[in-house]
């Protein structure tokens, strides 16, 4: 059985991802991404359940139970957050002519979400996400990659960027502008 700590790490990461993906789905009007959000919600529900079981097994006395109750609450909060994120993507079920303004609602948000297309002459083609250390270097985080008809969500460090990928990024405007220039091959990464 996985340790409670590992389960908590997972649930925290996934609950952050699900919120980003939910907003991205709205902004990019993407049904695929909305489906991934629904899948993630199920995963998070599942994790919450596992955390509850492991936590209950760990209590030996009332004091421990009180401390462990905090873990249950955090797991529950993550579940509620996932639930709220999923409600956001259900807005895409509304007929598209009724919601033309939706993608533009978040234009003034602090951390914006953008899609960046990678051109074949970009200096980051064939390089790994981890090796580039994109988030540390630019302040933007790659939350998903669209490759052909396939999606890679929350890409791992070993994923290589390919020509024609579309990166969905979230973060600062400066970071986005830099990524856009690098993606077009107008500026070198290094």
């Amino acid at each position: 059985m996985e340790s409670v700590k590992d389960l908590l790490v997972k649930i925290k990461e996934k609950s952050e991802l699900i919120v980003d993906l939910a907003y991205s789905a709205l902004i990019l009007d993407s049904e695929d991404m909305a489906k991934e959000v629904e899948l993630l919600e199920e995963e998070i529900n599942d994790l919450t359940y596992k955390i509850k079981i492991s936590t209950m097994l760990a209590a030996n006395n009332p004091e421990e139970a009180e401390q462990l109750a905090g873990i249950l609450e955090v797991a529950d909060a993550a579940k509620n957050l996932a639930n709220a994120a999923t409600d956001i993507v259900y807005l895409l079920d509304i007929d598209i002519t009724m919601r033309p303004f939706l993608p533009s609602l978040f234009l003034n948000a602090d951390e914006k979400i953008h899609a960046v297309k990678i051109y074949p002459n970009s200096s980051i083609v064939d390089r790994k996400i981890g090796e580039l250390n994109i988030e540390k270097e630019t302040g933007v985080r790659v939350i998903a990659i669209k490759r052909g008809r396939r999606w890679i969500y929350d890409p791992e460090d070993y994923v290589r960027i390919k020509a024609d990928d579309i990166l969905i990024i979230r973060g600062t405007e400066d970071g986005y502008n830099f990524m856009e220039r690098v993606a077009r091959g107008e500026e070198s990464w290094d």
Partner: protein
Amino acid sequence: MKNISELMVDLAYSALIFNNKEIAEEVKYLEEKIDETYYKLQEAAIERAIEEENSAPALILIRLATSIEAISDSAVEIANVVLRDIEPHPVLLESIKESDISITRARVREGSILANKTLGELNLASETGMWVIAIKRGNYWIFGPTENTMIKVGDILLAKGPIEGVNHFHNLCSGKDKKI
């Protein structure tokens, strides 16, 4: 609402990791702000729907705001764990520390290049990946600082960002690293 709700989630995890009641109280305070905005938005949306004789935009906005409000409620749930006078379980702290987006804090020392510059000038988020989410200055807190917020010697900065950025952030605050 989106900005505040995200700040709330970050602050709630920070409150937990540092077992800090002041930060947890701020999360609750922000929840009141969110509620106020939420009610105003509902009113405005419905007024417009009546004026324009079209209910669809109002319905969409209200549903979206309801979800964002629910996200901020989850942040409050997390903050409440800290306010309950029982020290959070160590496993919670470890799990936040090991998550790929980490939260850290550091004091700005004499000689740090961050001192006497605004967050906008420093462009810390773009250059290092680390977002400053709160500053403790003497006895008071600045939550959700803006571009115009000036960093001073003695400030304690709370930041979130990739684990790879944490060391560099600490060295910038201590003055060990002189370049961003």
